[in-house]
């Protein structure tokens, strides 16, 4: 998928460990907030300089904004350049309502949240509906929104009118100290809430959906993920957080003018901070913010303030080239060397009081740690060549040992016969499952399918064959809902699926695999399958989904590789993963589009065995295949397409000796 960024697997580890660690995180989080709060509440007692508090306040503001950006753009891959819109709306809401009309300050926070939510809803409802919207167009669209709002603010005197709005200091409890303390604490609360929301979202169902959208949106759709809803959810959440942060910002600057709140530097900063720290993880923005704000502060302090933006530009350019997934991923990979470097360098400079200002020591430590983190390129896991053998062994072992593992099936569990023998149906074909009537599909002037009428019954294993260009993949696309018929109707399990979006068709009971496997790169094998269960016809929560995923992996023989990432699998294993994932949606109909492409003979035999097991478990299968010898062995029925129409349909032996079929394959004058 072009146009949207993807994250490497290491950057987003969502293993079982994280889940159990959830409670630990919550505790650590509360402690961290409390510790940060004491810096202000007990500032005078501790002798903590006000200057540091101001710096921390700035960091907290950016943590809020960067986290807000990350929730949409990092998690889902839809880059937004419009962060300034939220800051602007939030700031002006507070400025106008509180600054000009003396409405309760805290109430204005609620109003900004509401306004930003409406704005986000409007943008999302329009932008995400458009199927063909590419990532870059979305990015430019979001760039336009702040311009519009800024112009609006300038024109309307009720808002700004070109004069700016003064925001006085609101009343706050005197125990908190000075205004700066109050500002700090309120920023701490907002930033803390933002990070908590980001954390929660990442672990939740929505987080998984967004990760799938980032990795492969149309595949996610096919598994039953309601992509529109989740993207909108992320956008609105992002807006609300950004807006509240903007309101607090109004308080901080005291005077709100269009240039200061609708500034292009805002999206620049949040993008650099998030990209540096690591998008797609909730902690990434925090790291990025700490680094950039500290860097900026030190540059200004040493008189190099003009170079701030240059440094930022260099960082952004460098990141895109060297480390697009950000620092967090590198930190996660080698925590000890990086943290040790930081501690050592900082201590080495701080303790002897080398720079007059401890912050310089900290910055030096961060820079050194960053260098270490970026130093050596990550080693790629060697693609295991012998795995295929292991996989087949796993299949036959599992099959021999635990026949009960396959899904409930009333008919006898037949032992698999020798792969070379032709298939016998495990059950008699049952009810009508798929009904196509007069289906046609045109692509401009090309008639890919013309007047196709056929029925498929439960329990069949149908081979869909035909010369190149005969319309096989088109038919699969129509059955799975990826394409709409130009004419005709398609019914699956009694439902009319013509015109339904792919995720609805998935819920009716259709699953498909792709010729080129498209796993979710940032999730383990088990989690890939778990995704299908979480969003399938009978959704389950994560833990249960992971358990059930194990079952499906056993059917295809990948259970030994459950904790591995897709990048470490070979082609055959990735195809098996495709099958397991499709199977996990509990389909009635499984569509396989050239699932055997590129395999060697041993792998093909293994795949055939797996398909037999799947078929025995009660799934109706339609397999598009070029390898006729395989189809002859496997299928109970063969449908031959030629130039978009159905040429023959029936028993494999009969069909393959049909003169018309032979002619289609070999040419006009060939004889049987």
């Amino acid at each position, binding site marked *: 998928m072009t146009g949207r960024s993807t994250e490497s697997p290491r950057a987003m580890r969502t293993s079982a460990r994280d889940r159990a660690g959830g409670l630990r995180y919550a505790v650590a989080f509360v402690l961290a907030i409390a510790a940060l709060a004491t810096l202000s509440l007990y500032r005078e007692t501790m002798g903590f300089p006000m200057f540091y508090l101001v710096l921390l306040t700035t960091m907290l503001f950016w943590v809020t904004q960067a986290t807000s950006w990350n929730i949409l753009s990092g998690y889902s891959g839809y880059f937004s350049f419009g962060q300034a819109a939220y800051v602007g709306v939030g700031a002006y809401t507070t400025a106008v309502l509180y600054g000009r009309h003396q409405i309760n300050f805290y109430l204005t926070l609620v109003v900004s949240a509401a306004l930003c939510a409406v704005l986000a809803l409007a943008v999302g409802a329009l932008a995400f509906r458009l199927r063909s919207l590419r990532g870059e167009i979305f*990015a*430019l669209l979001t*760039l336009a929104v702040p311009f*519009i709002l800024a112009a609006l603010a*300038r024109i309307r005197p009720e808002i700004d009118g070109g004069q700016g709005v003064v925001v006085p200091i609101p009343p706050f409890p005197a125990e908190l100290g000075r205004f700066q303390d109050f500002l700090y604490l309120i920023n701490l609360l907002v930033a803390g809430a933002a990070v908590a929301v980001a954390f929660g979202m990442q672990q939740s169902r929505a987080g998984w959906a967004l990760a799938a959208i980032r990795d492969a949106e149309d595949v996610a759709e096919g598994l039953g993920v309601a992509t529109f809803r989740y993207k909108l959810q992320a956008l609105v959440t992002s807006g609300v957080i950004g807006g509240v942060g903007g309101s607090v910002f109004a308080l901080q600057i005291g005077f709100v003018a269009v240039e200061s709140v609708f500034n292009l530097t805002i999206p620049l900063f949040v*993008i650099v901070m998030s990209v540096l720290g690591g998008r797609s993880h909730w902690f990434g923005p925090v790291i990025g913010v700490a680094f950039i704000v500290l860097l900026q502060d030190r540059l200004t302090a040493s008189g190099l303030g003009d170079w701030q933006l240059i440094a930022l*530009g260099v960082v*952004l350019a460098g990141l895109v080239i060297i480390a697009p997934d950000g620092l967090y991923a590198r930190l996660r990979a080698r925590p000890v060397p990086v943290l040790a470097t930081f501690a050592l360098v900082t201590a080495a400079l701080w303790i002897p009081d080398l720079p007059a200002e401890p912050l310089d020591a900290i910055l030096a430590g961060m820079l050194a740690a960053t260098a270490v983190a970026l130093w050596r390129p990550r080693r790629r896991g060697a693609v295991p060549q012998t795995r295929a053998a292991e996989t087949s062994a796993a299949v036959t072992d599992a099959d021999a040992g635990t026949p009960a593992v396959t899904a409930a099936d009333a008919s006898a569990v037949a032992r698999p016969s020798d792969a070379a023998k032709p298939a016998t149906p495990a059950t008699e074909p049952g009810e009508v499952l798929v009904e196509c009537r007069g289906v046609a599909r045109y692509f401009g002037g090309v008639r890919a399918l013309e007047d196709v009428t056929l029925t498929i019954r439960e329990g069949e294993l149908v081979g869909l064959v035909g010369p190149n260009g005969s319309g096989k993949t088109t038919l699969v696309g129509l059955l799975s809902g990826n394409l709409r018929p130009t004419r005709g109707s398609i019914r699956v399990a009694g439902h009319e699926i013509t015109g339904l979006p792919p995720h609805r068709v998935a819920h009716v009971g259709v699953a498909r695999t792709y010729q080129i496997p498209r796993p979710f790169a940032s999730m383990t094998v088990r989690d890939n399958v778990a995704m299908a269960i979480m969003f399938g016809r009978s959704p389950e929560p994560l833990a249960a989904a992971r358990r059930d995923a194990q079952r499906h992996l056993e059917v295809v023989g990948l259970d030994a590789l459950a904790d591995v990432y897709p990048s470490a699998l070979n082609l055959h294993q990735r195809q098996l993963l495709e099958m397991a994932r499709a199977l996990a949606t509990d389909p009635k109909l499984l569509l396989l589009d050239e699932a055997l492409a590129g395999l060697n003979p041993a792998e093909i035999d293994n795949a055939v065995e797996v398909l037999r097991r799947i078929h025995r478990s009660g799934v109706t299968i339609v397999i598009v295949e070029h390898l006729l010898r395989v189809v002859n062995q496997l299928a109970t029925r063969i449908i031959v397409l030629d130039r978009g129409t159905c040429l023959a349909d029936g028993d494999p032996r009969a069909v393959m000796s049909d003169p018309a079929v032979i002619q289609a394959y070999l040419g006009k004058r060939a004889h049987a």
Partner: protein
Amino acid sequence: MITLQAALAGALIGGLYALMAAGVSVTWGVLRIINLAHFGMILLSAYLTFQLVTSWGMDPILTLVVTVPGMFVLGGAIQWAYDRLGISELNSLLLSFGLLILMVQAVSIVWSADFQRMHESANPYATGSVTVGGLVFPITTLLAFGFAVSLIAGAHVALQRTFLGRALRACAEDPAVAAAFGIDHRRIGTLLGAAAGATAAVAGMLFALANALTPASAFEWFGTVFAVVILGGIGHLVGTLAAGVLVGMVSGVVSVVLSPAAAPFVLFSAIVLALLLRPQGLFATRGAA
């Protein structure tokens, strides 16, 4: 009458925006790279024009002799670097954004953030104007439009009639097959980047003729130029010219009829609508050029 004046003046200025947009548009359409550094090149040329005129007393148009080759080389080098790094479409947005920030800051350091303007004594075109009927057209505006139209027309003809132009269009549609017929993607890309740089040099000079310069100008062009690129259809030169004229006219009329501040509002709302209703651009007829 005032409205007509505003509309026509706007249309002429729109030519300049079209010229700025042409470089970005064609590199996006053919090479799938969104090069924000293009704005940096326009900015640099504008400042260079200012400097050459102010320090060396050169005629502003003659400064092109220096700026065009300079930006030609810079544009080509940047494009070559993008290709070398194998940058994707979205990453090019980020990377070039970084480059743009660098360039704007560099300009700010060298020339300060204060407004700079060529002195009237040095700039012979500053005050002249032509009167037709009751309408007054400043020379700078006419020059801008003239250059813009000639360059865009020339580029369009080159794209349509020359082998190189065909190669560029083929690359936009199917780079793999184009390569099979001898088209070197990297070389073509570098050449295109260089040509875009040259147009940036001219645009910069034209902007400096009539306006005060400040580093932030680069960001001010953003919105309008992308509006023109998208309305005109990515990669379509003639569409870009038409869109530029349209955008200029609308801005001009809205400024006079409503208020100057209202212009961006109307404009961008129109862009958003256009984008959602007709993503390929108002004037595009499919495909590049």
